[in-house]
């Protein structure tokens, strides 16, 4: 019997190697898999490259991971926020490398990796500092920049419900990067708030089919807050 459910977050994260590229879902707090990030901190892998839209909020989740000093590089679109003090400090001190990517290019580079695309021409970033040094091409009278896929060793994503085959559904805008990151990683780990029997998820509504998900783990329902998470009422 196929059962992708891990008994604990520790078990789900047991074998993340040093030097791994780890995608972490979420847009700010929404969709950020905080329990999986905490487990990654406890697991201790270092020299990591992190792919996320942001670079952590407050002192929890991704910010707490950055604070351990185990992240060598971050690939993201919007690091600077009112509560990104942990990243800001590391960056200003030269202790973390930043690859800044326009958000749509970030999403498409992740999608391309998952879809087996070797690169793509995008109009976004053409003629700007973020397109500098990249191959360009005129296609149909418009200028494009060549962008490459971003593959990951591990993706940590947050979904709402899943089943033992790894099928997932999400909740509201917490979906954001989850579905594409699941496709782009060798090992995709999802936290869910509810595990349901096979067949309970409406096949018409499954957002991430189980083929993209290798492990899932149930975590208590939390409510995302402005700078992280709190126990749901």
């Amino acid at each position: 019997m196929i059962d992708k459910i891990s008994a604990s977050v520790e078990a789900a994260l047991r074998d993340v190697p040093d030097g791994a590229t780890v995608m972490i879902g979420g847009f700010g707090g929404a969709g950020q898999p905080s329990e999986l990030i905490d487990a990654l901190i406890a697991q201790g892998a270092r020299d990591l490259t992190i792919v996320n839209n942001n670079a952590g909020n407050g002192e929890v989740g991704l910010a707490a991971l950055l604070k351990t000093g185990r992240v060598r590089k971050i690939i993201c679109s919007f690091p600077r926020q009112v509560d990104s003090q942990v990243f800001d400090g590391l960056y200003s001190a030269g202790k973390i490398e930043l690859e800044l990517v326009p958000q749509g290019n970030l999403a498409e580079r992740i999608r391309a990796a998952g879809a087996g695309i070797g690169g793509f021409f995008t109009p976004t970033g053409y003629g700007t500092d973020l397109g500098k040094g990249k191959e360009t091409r005129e296609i149909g009278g418009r200028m494009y920049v060549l962008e490459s896929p971003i593959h990951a060793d591990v993706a940590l994503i947050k979904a709402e419900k899943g089943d033992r085959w790894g099928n997932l559904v999400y909740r509201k805008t917490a979906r954001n990067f989850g579905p594409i990151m699941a496709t782009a990683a060798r090992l995709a780990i999802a936290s869910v708030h509810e595990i349901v029997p096979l067949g309970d998820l409406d096949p018409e509504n499954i957002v991430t089919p189980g083929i993209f998900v290798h492990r899932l783990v149930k975590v208590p329902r939390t409510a995302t807050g402005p700078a992280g998470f709190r126990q749901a009422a």
Partner: protein
Amino acid sequence: MQRLTREQMAVRVARDIPEGAYVNLGIGLPTLVANHLPRDREVFLHSENGLLGMGPAPAPGDEDYDLINAGKQPVTLLSGGAYFHHADSFAMMRGGHLDICVLGAFQVSTAGDLANWHTGAPNAIPAVGGAMDLAIGAKKTFVMMEHLTRTGESKIVERCTYPLTGVRCVSRIYTDLSVLDVTTNGLKVVEIFNDLPFGELQKVTGVPLID
């Protein structure tokens, strides 16, 4: 010179957003436009984090931080609204499906180049978010900004001195003094507010305007 207030600017931009338009309102000043869309007009607001049919802010106590906008503030979803993942959201932009995008700006050039993501200051931490995708994606990109900087310099320039967000991407500029269309011949005045004479507008604008 009598300038429009930020709310008056939002009212003016809202007037140009037609029934049925798919629209993305950027962070900051453009966000105000949502408050001034006529209630009898159906407009689809898009948020880059995976939301179409965005509604107003929830009542205090009803915030759901799984339902936020691009500025990470809690919002609501209208009946008929939809959620989707990030690659689909940016396909809506880059694929030219959005009709209008309204963005703030540091500078706009006479050719329609936009600078709005980075001051280029050496100690500034850069952050781009969806700005570059938005700038080039929608069918029409509207810029909404004060005409002059706080120190009185024109934000409409021959060439942007700040780092570019997009090349030749702006179609119309709404300022607190005027509305200007970007044309192949240069910036054409569509409207001047509060009976400001054209000559006065020209005097404070960094590039030649077409009356």
